[in-house]
């Protein structure tokens, strides 16, 4: 059973791995130096979130979805190809953003994070969601 964000429970015994978004996100947020993350739909709806308590989810989800869409649209428009993922480094941390058929994965990390390890894990997570959502 999966508990949804409104408190209801829905059976998902036969769902492919990429459809269990909370499991996908949990796998990523367990990685070393990852502070938290969320999975947000293109309209900004939070599907799953595990952010530190001092970070408000709604503004982050709204901006992440908008940025994700901008990157998604920018690719084909400027002949950069389909958007896969982005890494934004700041002085005191980093944000990774991955595109999937149902929205965007956002990971918040420390600066010490192994960039390539996160890229690899994110790529796998994106792949599993794409497999589950082939449209």
């Amino acid at each position, binding site marked *: 059973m999966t508990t949804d964000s409104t408190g209801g429970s829905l059976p998902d015994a036969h769902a492919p791995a990429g*459809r269990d978004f909370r499991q996908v996100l949990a796998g990523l947020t367990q990685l070393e130096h990852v502070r938290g993350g969320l999975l947000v739909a293109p309209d900004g709806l939070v599907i799953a979130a595990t952010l*530190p308590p001092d970070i408000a989810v709604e503004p982050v989800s709204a901006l992440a*979805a*908008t940025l994700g869409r901008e990157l998604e649209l920018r690719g084909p428009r400027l002949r950069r190809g389909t958007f*896969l993922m982005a890494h934004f480094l700041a002085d005191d941390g980093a944000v990774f953003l991955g595109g999937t058929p149902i*929205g965007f994965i956002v990971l918040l990390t420390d600066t010490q994070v192994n960039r390539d390890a996160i890229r690899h894990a994110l790529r796998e997570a994106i792949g599993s969601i794409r497999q589950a959502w082939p449209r």
Partner: protein
Amino acid sequence: MWLKRLWTSKTETSGRPPTTVQFFRQATLHRNAGRFEEAAALVEQGLRLDPDNVVGLLLSGSIHAVFREMDKAREAFQRVLALDPTHPRALLGMARMALEEGETEACTDFLRRALARYPDFPEATALLEAVSQGATDAAPRPAPATGFRVERLRVPQESREALLARIDATLIFAQPRGTSTEEVATRTSRVCRLTGSLLTRCGLKGLKHAILEGAAETTFLRADGEIVLSIAFGRDVEINAGLAHLERVWTNCHQELSSQVAS
């Protein structure tokens, strides 16, 4: 499908068909859990019974947006606004789509209308802050520098496109320069501003660099509060090599801009 079985058994037991409220409540549960196809099916059934149901139309807009069916999403939000002209969620939906189309003024207008009705709307507040940072988004000023010596920047030969712009999207140089260069500058500037807002909301300080990986190209960005440098390579570029190029060209850009000011 288990859901159909669930509905069937319920209706058979109670003898009553599900109400639109039940349809949309169940659809909301599915959408919030990321079960978009199930949610879409229920919304469609609910709207067939009650085509002007605001909850159903909002759900419809949201689910169409998930599947990137933006025309249908817009239509749903417009129908909500026809019924309730200041509905904050519908206005937010319209604002997002306006921004995607580069219509910053329209986006700002939708967001202000949403906030007039619901002043504590966190998503609209965050988006308005990000958008307001780039009020000149739609109309970049003409390039100011005529004596910019591009050869001094040492742009790597393997780069597909290099571009330096002010944060308001005013182009300083581009190599090569083509019909889409202005749009690249506008979109690059927008990415930087959205990223800056996102990092701030995540409790992080300003953007140092960004790596944007696409299926065909990898783009490296470097920015401060005033200018942004973008260098695009083929998809197989080694990340550390790309970053080294970025740092070198960035330093050279600053030196060249400083020498221009001095002369």
